């Protein structure tokens, strides 16, 4: 059992949650999302993000529109759909439950 693997599994579980969190409130372009996630050390390589964005978009949680850029190719600006917002709220709750659960167990141990 590799520690990296377990860590990766944990990160993978919350990564979608984090993407939705980042996009909550304002539409963002992929590089912005990457920037935020990288700062939070949620992802290491950028390539990881694109399949996730595409999947969330295909699942109807995200939507995007093209915007011209002054420098370089047009950019995809991602935003939450209504469905995505509801999904995020549910994740939000389960995240809190999770944190609570972990804290509870930790406290018991302590």
């Amino acid at each position: 059992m590799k520690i990296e693997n377990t860590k990766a599994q944990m990160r993978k579980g919350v990564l979608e949650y984090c993407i939705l969190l980042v996009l909550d409130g304002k539409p963002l372009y992929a590089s912005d999302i990457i920037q935020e996630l990288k700062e939070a050390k949620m992802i290491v390589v950028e390539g990881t993000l694109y399949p996730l964005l595409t999947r969330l978009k295909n699942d109807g949680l995200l939507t995007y529109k093209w915007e011209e850029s002054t420098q370089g190719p047009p950019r995809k600006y991602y935003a939450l759909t209504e469905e995505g917002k509801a999904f995020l709220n549910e994740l939000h709750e389960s995240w809190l439950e999770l944190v609570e659960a972990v804290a509870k167990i930790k406290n018991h141990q302590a």
Partner: protein
Amino acid sequence: MKKTFTINISGTIFHIEEDAYEKLQVYLNKLKNHFGSEPEGREIVADIENRICELFLDKSKGENKVVVIEWVDEVIAIMGTPEDFIEQEGNEEPLPGSVKGKRRLYRDADNKVIGGVCSGLGAYFNIDPVVVRILFVVLLLINGIGLIAYLVLWIAVPKAVTTAQRLEMRGKEINISNIERSVRDEGTDEKRGVQSVADSAGAKGREKAAREGGTGYDLLKGLVKATVIAIGIFLILFGFMGLLGFISSLVIGQTFLSDWPLAIDSDFHLYGTLTQFVSQSTVTWGLICVGFLIGIPLLAMLYVGTKLVFGYKSNNAAIGLGMVGVWLLALVVLLVVGTREISNFRDNSSLSTSETIYPAAGKTMKISLTEDKYNGYKDLDWDLDRFKVVSVDGRNILLGKPRLDIEKSSTHDCVVVVKKQSRGKSRDEANNRIQNIVYHYQVTDSTLVFDPWFQLGSNESWKNQKVDITLKIPEGMSVYLDESVDRIIYGIANVSNTWDHDMIGKTWVMQPEGLTMKDSLDVRRDFLQQ
């Protein structure tokens, strides 16, 4: 000095150095292979290319700089390789490479002796090619099947050219690490190997889907596969046997064995016999065309069959289209030749000769056939209507069966009318043929003896020649039909509507209303009187 290329990433033009270009190409192909060729995968790759474009633009800072290998390394570090993605995702799936790949049949050009067929088969069945070679040689020595099989496989099975194909041939999963290993081992063109990975990405996607599917799907897939293989085997057997029989009967008969027998116990040879019917060039062209018309579909069957069973890929569109083209051409030529031949039948002519005979009055005339002098000879056992070819002392003689009808004479005379008919390109030609027809009959005072056959004449070919004999007898005259005339009587009208075959062995009297059977009492009375 370094060579540079111009590339277009997401609509932006970059100049890129050769080594950087190759590295980028390999990287992008890896990504394409990883994400698959489904729309989703393509979208992801497009997004990543978009990002790479931005990163390059960022680096050139508005100036028109050339992309160097360091930039590409940096970009790859930022974006990550498929291996990184798998690690990051904590993929539970086994890493590709541990799964045994599907084998495909290719010709192994690296270990070839002649065409690489045996080494390819060896790789496919995972046995030493030497064993396969020995098998082929043995088959070749026994009956030549080995040669045909080898040639067919040589033509039909594609050569393993790319690294991906070489891996497929040995049943190794096509993935980056295998390819790289293989490429390193063989020191061959890296680009080509990786290029073909992108081609096989679709296949990989399907395999993945199959792995994810339930057992029901697996069962169905197995069933379909078994059916496909069964059909394939059937096609192979059918095509192979068909070709073998076909080649031996027609093509060989035409080309180098003009004395190829039609039947085991026969003096007849296909080529020579066919020229009895149609002109020589027609036979030659016709046989060639028929060869293509039948041979090509058989070959195609064999090809599709092997394809189904061994599941190899090949893109021989040119050969396929060429085959279809040749087939159509053969069809057209056959039609042209056929029409030309039919023109030999365009016109017809007939010639009637009448002879009044004087049978002894009051006596019943016996009608019979002479002995069939062509009976003992070998004849062509073809089911042809009233026509036969016999071989007499090595010469083919063409015979036709005459037809005998009996009518009421309009006078008091008894008349034998022999009407000869033939077809030809022109009336003159038909007339000439009629002149060549030889037919005899003999008359005595109370017998009429016909030859069972008329001859078409030497050096003639069959152009639907006919001989119709009409015996016109006056009212009151009676004839006895000998058993032997069964062969030539044809639709003789009579008052009792008796079938030809039932008319023989009986005596018939011409009455005002038509030919009437003498009932057995009459016959007995006549007999007693005599």
